[in-house]
C-alpha cells in the first residue's frame, strides 16, 4: 500500500503531467474544431459538463502542489547536505558525483583555493561544502505557486462560473442575481487620464436592507458585491415613453431599456398588438467633441423614427420631458435615465487568475537577474576513511563551475600522490 502510494505521488508530481494534460486538451481542441467554429467555447462547455475533463484539468494544480512540496524538500536537503548533515539519496540531489581514493587532505588549502575563485565554504565534521551565487529556488517556488493559482483559477472559472446580465438604472435598486441591493444613486461617466483607461465609470449604490453599506463600483478591478463581481459592459438608456396614434387613441406607455451607445447606434421598441415600431438612437456629436457627452452630463436627447410596418411615418428628436406631435401621432418622453448593462459574475477563479499574474511577474523579476548574474553553483566533498566523495551541481555557468570542481579534485588527488 505504501509502495502504491509512493508510486502515485511520484507520478502525480512528475514534470510530465502538465505537458501531457495540456497536450490531451489540445487534441480535444483539434477534435472539436472539426465539428464547430466555436471551438474554445465548446471545449469549455464540455469541460464544465464532464467530470472526466474537469478531473483531468485538476491534475495540473494537483501536480503543482506536489511539485512545490518536492522542490522544497529537495532544496532543504541540498542545504542540509552542504552543511554536512546526513541526507537520504545524496547523489540524486546533485548533477554529478565522483569518488576518489584519498587518505590525506588539506582542508584549509582547499578552502583557500575555493575562496580565491569566489566560493564560500562551510566545514562540518568530515564534509566541506562550497557554494557561490543565489539559488533560483524562490523564483521556482513562486513560478509553481503561480502555475497552481492559474490552473486552479481556470478550473474554478470553467466549472463554476455564473453570469447574469442585468440593467443597472439610476434611481432603481441594484438588480443582484440573489435578491436586490441598495438603490443606485448615481452613475457617473468621466474622462480619465490613465495609461490604459480612457474613461472612468462610477456606480454609486446606497446602503441595502440586507446589510451592505454604501458602495461605489468602478471599472477595474471589478468589485465583489453580494457574492458577484460587478462587471460593467455597455452604456444604455432607460426610457419611459407614451405613444398614441389616430388608430390607437388610447395610446401606449411603457418603460424600456435601450442599448443605443455609442451615439448613432439604433435600438427599437415594438408597440404590442399594433403595426407600430419606434427606432431610437442618440445623435452623433460633431467631430472633435466628446462622443459620450450626453451620457456624461445626463442631458440626453433622443432621435426617433416611427414606423408603421415597413413605412417610415416620421422622424424627429426630443429631450427628456419633451413631446413630439404630428398628424395625430403623439410621442412623449417623460423620463430618460442613464443605465449600465452590467454582468454579475459569480466566479472566485478570477481571484486566482489575478494572483497568478502578479506571482508570475514577481517570479520573472527574481529569476532573470539571478540566472543572468548570480547563478547558484555548489559542491560538496565528503571525506571518509580512505575515500572522498565529491558532488557538484550548477544552475548556470556550469562549464566554469565544472572547471573549478575538477581543479579541486586534482588538488585532492595531488595530495594523495604526495
Amino acid at each position, binding site marked *: 500500500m505504501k509502495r502504491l502510494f509512493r508510486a502515485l505521488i511520484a507520478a502525480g508530481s512528475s514534470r510530465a503531467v502538465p505537458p501531457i494534460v495540456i497536450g490531451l486538451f489540445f487534441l480535444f481542441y483539434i477534435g472539436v474544431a472539426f465539428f464547430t467554429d466555436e471551438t474554445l467555447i465548446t471545449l469549455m462547455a464540455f469541460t464544465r459538463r464532464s467530470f472526466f475533463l474537469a478531473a483531468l484539468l485538476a491534475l495540473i494544480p494537483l501536480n503543482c502542489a506536489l511539485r512545490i512540496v518536492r522542490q522544497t524538500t529537495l532544496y532543504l536537503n541540498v542545504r542540509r547536505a552542504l552543511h554536512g548533515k546526513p541526507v537520504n539519496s545524496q547523489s540524486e540531489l546533485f548533477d554529478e558525483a565522483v569518488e576518489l581514493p584519498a587518505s590525506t587532505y588539506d582542508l584549509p588549502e582547499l578552502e583557500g583555493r575555493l575562496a580565491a575563485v569566489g566560493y564560500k565554504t562551510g566545514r562540518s565534521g568530515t564534509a566541506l561544502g562550497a557554494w557561490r551565487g543565489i539559488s533560483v529556488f524562490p523564483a521556482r517556488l513562486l513560478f509553481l505557486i503561480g502555475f497552481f493559482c492559474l490552473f486552479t483559477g481556470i478550473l474554478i472559472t470553467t466549472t463554476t462560473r455564473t453570469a447574469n446580465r442585468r440593467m443597472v438604472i439610476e434611481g432603481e435598486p441594484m438588480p443582484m442575481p440573489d435578491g436586490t441591493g441598495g438603490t443606485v444613486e448615481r452613475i457617473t461617466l468621466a474622462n480619465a487620464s490613465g495609461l490604459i483607461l480612457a474613461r472612468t465609470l462610477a456606480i454609486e449604490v446606497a446602503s441595502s436592507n440586507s446589510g451592505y453599506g454604501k458602495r461605489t463600483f468602478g471599472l477595474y478591478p471589478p468589485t465583489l458585491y453580494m457574492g458577484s463581481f460587478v462587471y460593467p459592459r*455597455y452604456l444604455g438608456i432607460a426610457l419611459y415613453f407614451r405613444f398614441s396614434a389616430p388608430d390607437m387613441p388610447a395610446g401606449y406607455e411603457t418603460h424600456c431599456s435601450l442599448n443605443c451607445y455609442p451615439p448613432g447606434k439604433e435600438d427599437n421598441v415594438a408597440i404590442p398588438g399594433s403595426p407600430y415600431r419606434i427606432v431610437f438612437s442618440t445623435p452623433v456629436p460633431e467631430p472633435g467633441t466628446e462622443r459620450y457627452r450626453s451620457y456624461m452630463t445626463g442631458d440626453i436627447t433622443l432621435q426617433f423614427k416611427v414606423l408603421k410596418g415597413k413605412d417610415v411615418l416620421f422622424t424627429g428628436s426630443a429631450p427628456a420631458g419633451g413631446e413630439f406631435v404630428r398628424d395625430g401621432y403623439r410621442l412623449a418622453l417623460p423620463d430618460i435615465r442613464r443605465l449600465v448593462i452590467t454582468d454579475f459574475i459569480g466566479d472566485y477563479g478570477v481571484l486566482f487568475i489575478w494572483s497568478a499574474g502578479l506571482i508570475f511577474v514577481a517570479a520573472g523579476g527574481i529569476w532573470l537577474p539571478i540566472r543572468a548574474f548570480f547563478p547558484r553553483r555548489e559542491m560538496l566533498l565528503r571525506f571518509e576513511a580512505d575515500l572522498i566523495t565529491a558532488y557538484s551541481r550548477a544552475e548556470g555557468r556550469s562549464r566554469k563551475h565544472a572547471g573549478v570542481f575538477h581543479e579541486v579534485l586534482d588538488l585532492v588527488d595531488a595530495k594523495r600522490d604526495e
Partner: protein
Amino acid sequence: MAIFFKLIPHIIVWFGVVVILLRGFSGRRSVVVVASGLGLLVGTVGVFALRSLPGLSPFIAIKSVLGVCFLLLWAVSVAASYRTADSGAAFPWGERFFSSSSGAGVVTVIVTLIAGGIAVCKFSGAETSALSFSLLALSAGSLAYFIAYAARFIEKRLPESFRVSQLGMVVSVIALLLFSSSSILRLDLFSPLSMKVMKGVHDFVHQFMESILIPDHLFIRPPIWKSIGFLFGKEVGFWGGLVIWFAPVLLIVLAINSVRLPSVAHIRQGAQRRKLLAGAIREQRLQLVMPLFSVVIFAAAAYQSSFPSVEYWDPKPLPVTANPAGEIVIPKKGDINLEDGKLHKYLFKQGEREARFFVLQTPDGKLTVDLDACAICKPDGYGQTEGSVICYYCKTLIPLETVGKPGGCNPVPIGFSVKGESVVIDAMTLINSWGATVQATARVKEGGK
C-alpha cells in the same frame, strides 16, 4: 513533359527521404532499400487508384496523415526536451523499435508510402484507363527502385561523420514530407494552421478578457485597444502559425544542445578531460546537422505555402443594377454562362452602399449565389482553383461541393430564385446581408483582389 517537371521537387524529396532513412537505419540498409521501393510504388499506385474512384478523395486522408505526422513530431520534441531536462527519463521501447529490422521496415514503408501518395496528388484530373494505370504502375515501380538504389549508392559515399540520430531522422523526414505537400494546395498544412491559429487566438483573447473581467473598448484608450485588436488580425495567425510550425524542430535543437556533457570528474589528467569533452561537444554538434537542415526545409515549406505558385480564377466583378421592383436579374446564358462551373463575380451599388457577390454552379449541378466574403474574415474575397475556392484572407480552401452552405469560412449564401432563364436576387436582402454579416468583419474598406 510538364508533369515530369512538376514532379521533380517530389522526386528530390523521395531521394532525400531514402538517403536519410538509409543513414538513420545504417545497420538495416537492405531492408530500407526494399521497403522504400515498395512504399513508393504502393503509395503512388494506391493513391492514383483512389483518385480515380468516384466519391473518394485521397486528399483528406493524406492531409490527415500529414497532420498526425506533425503532431507526432510535436510529441517527439516534447519527449526529447523532457528527457534532457530530466536525465532519468528514458523511452526504451521506442529505441528498441527503431533499432529492429521490423521497425526499420515499417517506418520506411509508411514514410515512402506517404511520399509516393503526395507526389501523385500533383496530377490534375482523375481520368484513368487501364493503360494509363499500367503505365503509371510500371514507371512508378521503376522510378521507385531506381531512386532506392541510387540513394544507397550515394549514401555509401557520404562521410562517416555524417550521422543521423533517431531524433534527426524523425524531424528531417517529416520536414521533407511537409515540404513536398506544401506545394499542393489541398495538402498544405501551414496555411490552414495559420488560419486556425488566428481563430484560436481570437477566441482565446476574447475568452481571457471576459474571464478576467477586462472592461469593454469604450472605456479603454484607443492605442491600447488597437494593440489588442492586432491580436485578432491575420498577422498573428501567420506568426503564431510560424511558432507552432518551427517549435518542434527548435525544441529538438534545444534538447540536443542541452544534453549534459559526460562526467569527466573521475579523470585526473586535464588533457584527457578536455579531449573527452571536446569529443562530446563535436558529437553534439554533428547531431544538430539534421535538425538545422530541417529548419531550412520547414522554412521553405512555409514560404511555398504562403506564396503558392497557383493561378486562381478570379474575374473582375461586373457591375449590376436592380430593376424598379428591387430585383437583380442575371441571365443564365448570354455573354457569361453561369452554368460553366466557374466563379462569376458581380458588384451591386445602392447609393453609398455596395455588395460584392458571385454566382457559381457547384459540381452537383446546382447554382448558388454567395457574398464574395465570409462571416469571419476581412472581405478580401475568393478565387477559384481546381475543385475548390480559396478565401484570400485566411487561405482556407473550400471544396466546391460545400459552396452555398453557411458556416465557417464558407462564402455567405444569399437567397435567390430562378425565373425562366435568369437568376433573380433581392437587392435589399443582398445589401443588408453584406452590411450585417460582412462589414462587422472589415477593418479596412473592402475592395477584393
